[in-house]
């Protein structure tokens, strides 16, 4: 187990900075996810930690030991690849034992560790099969077994579930989380799937255009996004422009494109008269009920039944918003409906 520190990490391809002065500290045993859209620099950061790329600037430290010039083979990291990257000419057993052979672990110890890994990942009895004879989920479990069997200081995951179907993805991500907690290995996980990131991480690092937008635990990232990018990328959000009309401590009155709204600004340092950007989640914009602070009248554009809820696209005086209603409610396009919005639902953005 290692503590990982990135200091001003920068990696350029030609003149384009794929990773731009990224600094991050990951504690021993922590599970941190790098989350962002394609091209945001998350995989480049991961591959630089693994040693496949040399940083152009900055430092990669494992337990305060500078790793910039240490080759991948000597870093004691283990990576699970998106493509699984199993060795197609070796059977499951030899795939898992590969890292142990490279480390010249005695044969008896190899047998014990590979056997334990097979049991832990429900692969017992599959040791003699070739990767081509396994399903996607089984291949990913072999890749996991191959990674953990070497007892790495840091586990690296490069979108390991993206080739699996939706159900299997949920199942394997639970297995990954349980396994990581049991073994306590420091883990860096790369994904563009926000659900996966929210479900699996101790902390999430949201990246955009090579830079870190926000770092925090899943709840704070989801409930308190600091920027428009984070609010829009994590979950669904209505992002709007407004102006502070009045402020009394935490309580503010906002002018919005569809009228005045009352909100709690928390610690956001906006003054009266200042233009602000704010967001609220569709699940906070529900059918109006007595006691709701804000009443918003909207026209239904589309109503999509999602099973556990109904997803609503509404027009409010020219602004297009997303709202959420229960699964039993019935709507038709053109219906005029009143929605309620609590004052704590607002998130003010930088």
């Amino acid at each position, binding site marked *: 187990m290692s503590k990982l520190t990135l200091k001003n990490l920068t990696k350029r391809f030609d003149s384009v900075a794929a990773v731009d002065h990224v600094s991050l500290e990951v504690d021993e045993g922590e599970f941190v996810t790098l989350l962002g859209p394609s091209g945001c620099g998350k995989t480049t950061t991961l591959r630089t930690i693994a*040693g*496949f790329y040399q940083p152009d600037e900055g430092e990669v430290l494992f337990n305060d030991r500078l790793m910039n010039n240490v*080759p991948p*083979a*000597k870093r004691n990291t283990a990576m699970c690849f998106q493509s699984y*990257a199993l060795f197609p000419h070796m059977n499951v057993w030899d795939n898992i034992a590969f890292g142990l052979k490279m480390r010249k672990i005695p044969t008896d110890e190899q047998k014990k560790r590979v056997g334990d890994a097979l049991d832990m990942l429900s692969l017992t009895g599959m040791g003699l099969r*070739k990767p081509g004879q396994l399903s996607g989920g089984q291949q990913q479990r072999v890749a996991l077994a191959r990674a953990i069997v070497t007892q790495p200081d840091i586990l690296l995951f490069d979108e390991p579930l993206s080739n699996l179907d939706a159900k299997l993805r949920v199942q394997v991500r639970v297995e990954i989380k349980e396994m990581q907690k049991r073994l306590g290995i420091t883990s860096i996980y790369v994904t563009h799937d926000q659900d996966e990131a929210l479900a699996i991480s101790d902390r999430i690092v949201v990246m955009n255009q090579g830079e870190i937008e926000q770092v925090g635990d899943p709840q704070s990232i989801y409930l308190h996004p600091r920027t428009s990018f984070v609010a829009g990328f994590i979950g669904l959000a209505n992002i709007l422009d407004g102006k502070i009309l009045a402020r009394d401590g935490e309580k503010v009155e906002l002018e919005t494109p569809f009228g005045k709204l009352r909100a709690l600004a928390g610690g956001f340092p906006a003054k009266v008269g200042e233009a602000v950007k704010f967001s609220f989640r569709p699940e906070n914009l529900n059918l109006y009920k007595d006691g709701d602070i804000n009443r918003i009248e909207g026209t239904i554009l589309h109503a999509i039944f999602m099973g556990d809820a109904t997803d609503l696209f509404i027009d409010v005086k020219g602004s297009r918003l997303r709202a959420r209603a229960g699964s039993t409610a019935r709507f038709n396009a053109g219906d005029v409906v009143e929605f309620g919005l609590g004052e704590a639902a607002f998130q003010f953005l930088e």
Partner: protein
Amino acid sequence: MERKNVSAVHYLLLVPGVGFILLFIGSSIFLTVTQSVGLFSITGKSQFTLENWNIVFHEKESLDSILFSMKMGLLSSIGTLLFAFPVALFLRKGGSGKRFLASLIKIPLFIPALVAAFLIINLISFHGIINETLMALHIIKSPLRMLNDKFGWGVVAIQVWKNIPFVLLILSGSLASIRDDTVDAARNLGAGAFSILFRIYIPLAMPAILVSMILMFIKAFGDFAITSVAGPTYPPSIALRMRNTATMFQQWDKAAVLGVIIILTTLFVTWIYSRLAEFVTGGE
């Protein structure tokens, strides 16, 4: 599943290709085999006999030719592989000069074997460029015999030079199909350059390695042009001996025996390599 109706006209499309194979290749193989056992003889009485087989296997000259050709086939295939594999590995990842090198190395592909032999003779003959240069630099006092040498190194050198691009094409395709992730996974798990070469690249390229070795062996074992120009005066290659036996000594039936030996040897070597391929790839 619905089965498509195939009309008789459809089968007519096969006539040119299959007809040619049956008429010219099939019949000539049939005649070679039958003449080797005395049937359809064009120089003597036609009757079944194993006498020619008996003579060939008790004749030192014939056995020397067979062994010489086998040696040339084996050394040429190994030699070509040893030269081509590192280049194919370089071309897989590339670097500056990759395209230039890839073009340069394909030149021998467009030069006929006989012309190639004469080109190389300029280099390795008794008073060729290499010997003259080494003597001018006082590295050697008298010229080295590299051409028409008894062992056949000159033949091997020309075979390797001529066939590197051909083998390179096969190996490059195979190495290019190895995913970077697979190699990165090995590096990540602690494998150095040596382990990656012997545990990843070579096993994954093994089918291509075996195919190129089979094809190289067959070409070099049955070679006529290069050994006739650059080979030793004795023993001649089996193809050369076959030509001499048929046209100089008019012993067509005995020449047919040598022809059948060439065919059977290449079939046997192909069978051995395919068994080997099955073994190393686990039958996939």
